[in-house]
Structure formats: structure tokens, C-alpha cells
């Protein structure tokens, strides 16, 4: 299955945001939710099972000058094995203009046993734009082995790559369950915040989470946990709108 979805958020000239484009197709259906004033909110609604092996999905997000968009999802995305085919692939691109604010906070991706899934994320933020980008990953459903999953993220701010990260987990990834990568943890989540004047103080929260100021005007919050609940508890406090308010 191939599917493409696209969101374009623009300032409406009255301090709010309107969605100039909101287009999706199963299994990438998009719905505008919440009040029609201030920040626009869009939920990703899974219109079919999957992604399954062989699927090629693409979501493009554009946030114009002065627009504010929250992207969420109604449920976890469950990567499943399906037929014998190449890896399923989800590509997400986002561009945020000067004065634009994007928060990407979907529910976790779950790599079911036998799945083979690749997520490629490319986020470009112009000087003066702000992004909060969250990705949670769960390696296998409850009590099952992890599928193979590979995430590949580039986040750039003002023309410089501030965060470049790949993570590979599952039976084909050497050492992924060793003490350097995820250990016994089966869930991992990251939040990257980048924007003008963004800074944070390095710190740790509990044994398996930390806030890390990046080399550019950005910081990362990472948490590893036995399950998605632990990661959610560590990361949720870092998703508030106040953190990205210009």
C-alpha cells in the first residue's frame, strides 16, 4: 500500500492558524480537531491495519510564518509483518518558517514481532521557527519479541543540522538489547526542542532519563523504560505548550 498525506498550516491574519491543505488517504487519514482559534490541532487517524511490510507511507507538514500546529494521533501505530516483502517505510518531512511553531507528539510506534519497519524523519526549521518533535518507540507488543525497526532522524535549525540520530532495534540489530543501547528496556522516547533562544540545563530524571542541551539552540530529552508507560511518565512533562511559546 502506498499513501501520502499533507498538512499546510498558515497564519490566518487574526492571531490564529488555518489549514490551507489537509489531505490524506488510508491509512494516513488526517482530521482537524479542537477549537478553530489559536493553535490548529490535527490528529492522524489510522484508516487501516499496519503499516505492513511493503507499505510506503509519506506525510509532509508545512508550518508557515506565524502559524502554530499541533500534530497528534488517536492511537499507537502498529508495524506488522504482513506478507513477505521489503520493509515498510514511513517518511515524515516537516518545515517550519520564521515565527511558526510545530509540536509533533503522536502516540508510540509499536514494532510487533516479525515486522520490518523504517521511519525517516526530516525536519527543517528556519531561523525564528520553533519545533517540538517527539517520537516514542515500543519494541514488541506486551510479552512478545521486537520486530526489526530503524529510525533515521535529521533536525536542522537555521541551516545547521542540530540533531542527527539513527536507532536500530530488533533481532537483526547487533547489541540493541545490550547495556549500551536499550538494555532490558523495551520502550524509548525522545523529544527534541529547537528554536530561537532555546536552551536547557543538563539533568537527569530517575535512572533512565536525561535532559541534554545540544550543541545548537536545541535540547533533547531521552527516556528508556521497561514499557511505554515509564517513558510517557518521563516525557509528558516536557511537552507543554509553554516550552515552545515564542
Amino acid at each position, binding site marked *: 500500500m502506498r499513501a501520502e498525506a499533507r498538512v499546510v498550516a498558515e497564519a490566518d491574519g487574526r492571531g490564529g492558524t488555518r489549514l490551507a491543505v489537509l489531505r490524506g488517504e488510508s491509512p494516513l487519514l488526517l482530521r482537524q480537531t479542537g477549537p478553530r482559534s489559536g493553535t490548529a490541532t490535527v490528529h492522524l487517524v489510522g484508516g487501516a491495519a499496519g503499516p505492513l511490510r511493503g507499505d510506503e507511507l509519506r506525510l509532509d507538514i508545512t508550518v508557515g510564518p506565524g502559524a502554530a500546529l499541533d500534530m497528534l494521533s488517536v492511537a499507537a501505530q502498529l508495524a506488522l509483518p504482513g506478507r513477505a516483502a521489503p520493509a515498510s517505510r514511513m517518511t515524515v518531512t516537516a518545515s517550519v518558517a520564521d515565527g511558526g511553531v510545530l509540536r509533533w507528539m503522536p502516540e508510540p510506534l509499536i514494532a510487533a514481532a516479525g515486522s520490518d519497519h523504517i521511519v525517516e524523519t526530516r525536519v527543517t526549521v528556519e531561523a525564528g521557527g520553533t519545533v517540538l518533535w517527539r517520537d516514542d518507540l515500543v519494541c514488541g507488543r506486551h510479552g512478545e519479541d521486537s520486530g526489526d525497526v530503524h529510525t533515521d532522524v535529521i533536525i536542522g535549525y537555521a541551516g545547521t543540522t542540530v540533531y*542527527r540520530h539513527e536507532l536500530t532495534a530488533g533481532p537483526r540489530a547487533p*547489541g540493541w538489547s545490550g547495556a549500551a*543501547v536499550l538494555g532490558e528496556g523495551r520502550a524509548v522516547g525522545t523529544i527534541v526542542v529547537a528554536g530561537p533562544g532555546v536552551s536547557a540545563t543538563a539533568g537527569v530524571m530517575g535512572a533512565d532519563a536525561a535532559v541534554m542541551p545540544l*550543541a545548537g539552540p536545541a535540547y533533547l530529552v531521552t527516556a528508556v523504560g521497561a514499557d511505554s508507560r515509564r517513558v510517557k511518565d518521563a516525557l509528558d512533562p516536557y511537552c507543554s505548550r509553554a516550552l515552545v511559546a515564542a
Partner: protein
Amino acid sequence: MSLATLLLLADGRLPSGGHAHSGGLEPQISAGRVRDVTGLEGFLHGKLATSGLVAAAFAAATCADVRRCGELDAGMDARTPSPALRKASRAQGRALLRAGRAMWPVSPHTGREPHQPVALGALAAAAGLQPLEAAVAAAHGVTTGTASAGVRLLGLDPYAVHALLARLAPVCDRIAAQAADRCGDAVDDLPAAGAPLLDIGAEHHATWEVRLFAS
């Protein structure tokens, strides 16, 4: 290429301060994740596949063209989210350059305090080595330094640990070959395999008042 020169560059006795770093092992031992040789093996497999591959790729890319030091150094910054690890990498880069400048004519493009893999690649180039050799030295250094820290921290049997290193040698060769194959890629396209527990552990470690290793 000179094999003896490569051995010299990869030698743990090179006075570059590498022995002061555990490669992220000390915090994972403290967290109870590494207790024995088996735990060390899992740690090293994950480390080689992630920061080992990145270090090998950046050492190879620097060796292939030392004029790229600046952009490659920025690429290491983007791949090293932990400020404690950026600091440790630059401290090791500076110490390695200091030793290297006494040995070979190192390129002025290198800067004063580059990330360790960039410094290693620049030294390899100055020594007349090839990108693949720089990558092998980087992968080798990732395993041996960490393994000897394991012997000191856990009192592991040094023979068993060296048997582990022998098992990992072909893995180092494979990682280095992968890294060298990509040494001409644009910086954003170079390997970026991350290891969340290494990052989190390094931040914990940096808060300790007493520790045996600097990182």
C-alpha cells in the same frame, strides 16, 4: 601504508589519555546492567554498532580529506547529544592531537580541540595511512579501551576479556569496512547510529562526585 604505523596509532600505550575513559561502561556497571563478561559482550556489540560505527566513519572521512575537519566536527556534535560525551570526546581529541603532533606533521585544518574521531582521522592522514586503516583504529579503540576499563571496574578475568576481544575483531573489521565505504558521503548521510543508554548514562556519570573514569 605501513602496518607498524597503524599498530602505533592503535596502541593503547599511545600517551593520549584514553585510559582515563571507560567508554560509557562505568555508569552501566553502576546501574547493574553489566556484571560479567557476557554483559560486557552485549555492551560492546551495541557500542560497536552505534558509536563505534560513527567514530569509524568520521575517522575515515577525516583521513580521506582533512580539509573537511570543520564540517565533520559539526557532524559529530549533531550525533553526540550528551554534553558530557561531547566534552569527553573533545578532551580525548585534544590529548590525541598533542601526542600526534609530536609524531607526524598534522594538518592545520584540525583545530585545537576536535572530536576524538576527527583527531584520529587527521593523525592517520598525517601518518600516511588510508581511510580504512583510520576506521579500523577507531573501531579497535572503542572495544579495547572499554574492555580494559571492564577488567579494572569489575575485576574480570583478563584472559576471558581478551578472548572476547578476539571474537570482536572480525566485527571491528566489518564495521570499519562499512565506515570506509561511506567516507566520501555528505556529512548528513554519514552513519548516525545512536545509543540511548550511553547518552543517559554519561549524563548520570557527570553528576557523580567520585568516579574512577572521566567518562
